[in-house]
C-alpha cells in the first residue's frame, strides 16, 4: 500500500502463549468481516495455535498469558530478544489476569491438592512486564479484536490509536445501558479503562475491571459510592482482585 508517497511494509508477526486460556489468541481469528484484510496486512510467521509454519524473524511479538513456570521465563526472554516490539495481549499478559488469584494460596499446598504426591513445577504468577520490558499492553479478558486491529494498524501505518483515557461509564452511556448500580449490582466501570464497549454492564453483570484502571481513577470516591450502596468490603475487594489490574491501587 502506498499513501502520502510512502510505501508501507507488512510486518512479520509472531504470536505466543503462556499461562492463560488462549481466548485472546482466538480473538485474532475472530471478527470474520475483516479477517481476510487483517491477514493480508501482516505476515504471520509464527502462530502455534493455528499454524505449523515455524518461521523466525518476527519483528512484532503478540504475547498472551502470564508467566508461571521457569521455562516460561526463559521463553519470554528469548522472545524479548527477538522482537522489536513486544505487545502484551490480554489481561493475563498485562496484569497476570485471573491466574493471579493463585498467588493468594500456598503453592505447595495447592500442588498437593491438585496433584497429590506428584507435584508439578510452578511459580507465583507474574505479568509479562514483571519479567521483561513490554512495549504495548492491550488489556481485556478477552482482548477486543477491534482494538487489536487498531493497534496493529497503528504499528504498521502510525495511524492514530490511543487507549481511551476515560472510564467504562462513558461507553455505557453511549450505548444507553441503564447503570447497573440502579439495578443493585456492583460495577467497577467508574474506575476501569474504557475501550471494550461495555458489554458486561449491558448484560446486567457490572464491570469486573478486566481492562485495569482508567488513566485517572477517583478510587476514594468509588469506594464510598460502593459502600453507600451497601456492598460489603469483601465483595469490593474480591472484585478488584479478580483480574489483577488494580494491584497497587486497591
Amino acid at each position, binding site marked *: 500500500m502506498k*499513501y*502520502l*508517497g*510512502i510505501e508501507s511494509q507488512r510486518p512479520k508477526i509472531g504470536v505466543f502463549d503462556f499461562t492463560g486460556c488462549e481466548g485472546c489468541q482466538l480473538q485474532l481469528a475472530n471478527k470474520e468481516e475483516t479477517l481476510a484484510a487483517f491477514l493480508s496486512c501482516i505476515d504471520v510467521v509464527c502462530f502455534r495455535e493455528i499454524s505449523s509454519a515455524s518461521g523466525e524473524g518476527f519483528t512484532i511479538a503478540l504475547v498472551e498469558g502470564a508467566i508461571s513456570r521457569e521455562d516460561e521465563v526463559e521463553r519470554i526472554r528469548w522472545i524479548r530478544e527477538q522482537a522489536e516490539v513486544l505487545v502484551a495481549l490480554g489481561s493475563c499478559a498485562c496484569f497476570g489476569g485471573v491466574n493471579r488469584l493463585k498467588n493468594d494460596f500456598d503453592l505447595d499446598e495447592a500442588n498437593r491438592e491438585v496433584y497429590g504426591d506428584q507435584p508439578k513445577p510452578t511459580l507465583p504468577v507474574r505479568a509479562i512486564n514483571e519479567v521483561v520490558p513490554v512495549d504495548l499492553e492491550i488489556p481485556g479478558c478477552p482482548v477486543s479484536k477491534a482494538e487489536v486491529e487498531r493497534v496493529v494498524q497503528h504499528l504498521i*501505518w*502510525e*495511524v*492514530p490509536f490511543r487507549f481511551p483515557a476515560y472510564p467504562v461509564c462513558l461507553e455505557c452511556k453511549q450505548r444507553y445501558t441503564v447503570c447497573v448500580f440502579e439495578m443493585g449490582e456492583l460495577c467497577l466501570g467508574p474506575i476501569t479503562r474504557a475501550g471494550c464497549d461495555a458489554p458486561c454492564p449491558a448484560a446486567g453483570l457490572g464491570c469486573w475491571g478486566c481492562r485495569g484502571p482508567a488513566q485517572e481513577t477517583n478510587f476514594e470516591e468509588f469506594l464510598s459510592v460502593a459502600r453507600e450502596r451497601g456492598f460489603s468490603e469483601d465483595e469490593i475487594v474480591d472484585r478488584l482482585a479478580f483480574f489483577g489490574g488494580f494491584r497497587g491501587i486497591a
Partner: protein
Amino acid sequence: MKNLFQPYDVSLESEMLEPLDFNRRSRLKETDRCFKAEILNVIRLTDMEKLFQVRILDESEGERFSFLPGQFVMVEVPGYGEIPISISSSTSRTGYVELCIRRAGIVTGALHRAKRGAHIGIRGPFGTHFPIETMKGYDVLLIAGGLGLAPLRSSIFAVIENRADFENVHILYGTKSPDQLLFDYQYEEWGRIDDIDLQVIVEEPDNEWTGPVGLITKLLDGIEIDPQRTFAIVCGPPVMFKFVCSRLSEQGMPMRRMFISLERRMHCGMGKCCRCNIGSTFTCMEGPVFDYWTVMNLKEAI
C-alpha cells in the same frame, strides 16, 4: 400524511423554514469539506520542524482563498486526523500557503513522513488575526520565542512588505539553542531591509554561536520604546509571552496594544467542539489572537 414527511435535504437548501442568508448558506456545504491540496515543497528547518508549501488543487478555490496574519487552517491528513496550524506565509503570496510544522504526534508525524506531491486537505482560514492595519503609523515590536515564529512570520511579511507604513520596526527572536532556530536563512534578508532591527538570541549557545546569549527579555533591554507609540505582537510559549508582556506593560505599554496567539486543543475550528475553551471562551472563534488585556481576563489562560 406522506407528503407532510418528505425528507428534507439540507444540501438543496430550498424550503428552509427560516431562510438563511447567502453567506451562511454557502458555508453550509463548505464547513466540513476540505480543499484538497498538494504538498509542493518540503523544506527541512530543524530536526523537529519542516516548512510545507501547500497549493490548493482547485484553481478557482485557490484563488478565492485569502487570509490575514495570525489566522490558522485545519490541516487534514485523511485517515490520520485534522489539526490546527497557523499560516506562516505572506498574505500577498498567492498560489500556495506555507505551514511550518513541528513533529509532535500522529498527524504532524504523518506530515513529516509525507513526500512532495502528497495530497492533504485544508479547511479555513479560521480565527482572529493580528491587527496589522491598526498598527500602521506606529512603532512595531515583533517578538517570537521558539515555534512562535511560525504564527508571527506572516505578520513579519506584512510589515516588511509595507515597510513605509510603519515607524520603527524591531524583530526579536529567541530559542533555546542555535540548532532550533527556524528560518535562519531568512534573517539575513530581513536584517538587510532598511531600518529593520533584527536580533536573535539563544539561551544555550554552541561553539559557533557569536550572537547574544540569554532570555529574550534581555534583547528588550537594548531597545528604546515609546510606550504610547508602539504595538507589540508576541508569539511563543505561555511563560515567554507572560514575561515579555508584563515587562512591556511595566514600561507603560497599554495592554490592549500587545497581541498574542494562544494554543489549545482543537477538533473543529468552528466554535463547536469546545475543546479549545479557555474558561468558556472559544480560542478558535475569539482567538487565537487576543490582546493581552483579554488574556489577563481569561481565567485559566496563563
